[in-house]
């Protein structure tokens, strides 16, 4: 299975998903022109990993801005990762936020409340 690498733009985060190690990273701001279009390949990759690779998964979210539609996508994305963790593989999410970035921190806290997988809030 291929890795997923998407370059960062002003309005969309860098995507670096490694199929071999299960280490995945999302870095940057997210207010793409068309959130659905942007996140479709991201969701597709995760669906393939879950069904084909079925190994452990480590996610680092280093997001510093999310518009409302991106929040909705990320919320569903986190939910999917969490569900995958319930089939017996190790799933770990690191949610990074910068000092005083209340909105990102608060969003992380909300996700942490919802999920059952390991979810770390990390202040960078």
């Amino acid at each position: 299975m291929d890795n997923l690498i998407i370059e960062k733009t002003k309005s969309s985060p860098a995507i670096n998903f490694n199929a071999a190690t299960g280490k995945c990273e999302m870095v940057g701001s997210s207010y793409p022109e068309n959130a659905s279009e942007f996140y479709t390949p991201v969701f597709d990759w995760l669906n393939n990993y879950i069904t084909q690779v079925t190994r452990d998964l480590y996610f680092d979210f280093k997001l510093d801005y999310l518009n409302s539609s991106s929040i909705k996508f990320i919320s569903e994305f986190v939910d999917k990762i969490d569900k995958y963790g319930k089939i017996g593989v190790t799933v770990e999410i690191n949610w990074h936020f910068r000092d005083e970035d209340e909105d990102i921190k608060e969003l992380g806290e909300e996700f942490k409340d919802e999920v059952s997988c390991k979810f770390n809030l990390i202040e960078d």
Partner: protein
Amino acid sequence: MSQEIKDQRILIVDDALENVEILGSILSNYKRSVALNGEKALKIAFGENKPDLILLDVLMPGMDGFEVCRRLKENPQTKDIPVIFITAKTEVEDETKGLELGAVDFIPKPISPPVVLARVKNHLELKMARQDLEKNNQELAWHNKYITDSINYAKRIQSAILQTEQQIQKIFPESFYLYKPKDIVSGDFYWFSETEDLKIFAAVDCTGHGVPGAFMSIIGNTLLNEIVNMLKIKDPGQILNRLDKRVISELQKDINISTYDGMDVALGVFDSRKNILKVAGAYRPIYYIQNNQFFEIKGDRKSIGDPKKETSFTTTTIKIDSDTEVYIFSDGITDQNNIDEKKFSASKLKELLNSIHSKETTEQKKILLEQFEAHRGEVTQRDDVLLIGIRLQPLKEINIINYFGPLTHDKIVSLGEELDKNLQSFLTPKQIKMIFFCANEFMQNIYNYSEEVITEENKSVGVGSIDVTLIGQTLEIKSFNKTSNESFERVKDKISYYNSLDEDQLKALKKEKLAVESEATSKGGGIGFLEIIRRTKSPIIVTNDFDPINQNIIKFYLKINLGDTNG
């Protein structure tokens, strides 16, 4: 009193038994004790049946009368018992000695019964009168304490209705007040309020000071709250007119009564958006200093509550286009006399304000107080003192972004960058992020939902307007775009529902919306407006309008008070 006088006990001290008997029979209407020498006399005087008056022989074997008197006077228990010397000695120096020792009188021997009776009666009555006086004094002291305690409690209530300097500085960051009641409570009071863009301030001087003044001040305070905060009357002249009518009706004025209870008021309404100050005065002037020039608005020659004058109050409008210091005050400061009966005077106050107006407000307050106290010196404060000083600064409108046209994604990104850059020097990163979010959501909304579109690279892009302005501590975001009637109603209902929710309810609703198992769409996650309201703690105002060709326009307006958003 004669009844009581008979209950008085007289101690007769004489070594000669016959004298004792004579005196005893003269004073047979009184209770009597007898001592034949000085030692015995003291024993009785210090004993249980204390005499109310002592007749004391001077020449006695052993302890003489002078010594007995000296000892009686040095003891607090007996010092108030009147002593009358009975003596054959009539030399002046003996009388002097006796009086120095504290005796009240002398009765010469040989004894004349009418003289004895008259003097004894006089001194007993004097003593009883003195005791009555003392008792009354004690009662007065108690009453005084009771009343003072009660007024002190009233002071707590009066203080509770007055705002603190900190609260006032939230409305006017550069302001001070000098507030010095003559008595415990005051007939002067200050009053501040803030509604939307208006900041209202008043200095009120009620007739009288002390308790009656304080009662009037409570009425005045309540009426101002009612007129300004509830009835939303915003014009200073109108506020005073209304206040006048209400005071007259509340206090049921009889037009024929020559005196009336009322108040003198100086009042200002500052429109911080328009940079306009409107003032009115009821027998009080308003001073202001602008561009180093001193101005005085004299105010109308009518007090609030005067039923004989029907004049309505005049509003004067002052443009605040540069820093302006405004002063309003009661006459307590200018009327204060010094030791030479000279008043502090309005001219001295003007001169003083002119020389200190550009100083920091805390410094101004300090100087005014010092000057007032220096003038007053040892003279009692004549009236309640109140002076309010406020520095008004014109707010500049700073345009952060302003765009009308198609909101392509590139345009949204570049406007976002412009917003970031332009806010940098005014706001904290956290505030900028919040505003970026709001503006971005509004722009996204136009992109997705405007009824007016252009097509670019096969994509349909909405056309609309976005406008972000910073005015002092207020940030405004305005946006509009064409809409359908149906969509306007839907958005309006949705937003007014969000506006009605509190913080916790918004949070719960957001969570609920995020949990809905639907494929997120490109047209936003359905939480945009909700998040704007939740994060800014401000309502979104949605209105509509029709453009010249009768197309429906939806308008969004968001006002964020940056003072409320911490950091």
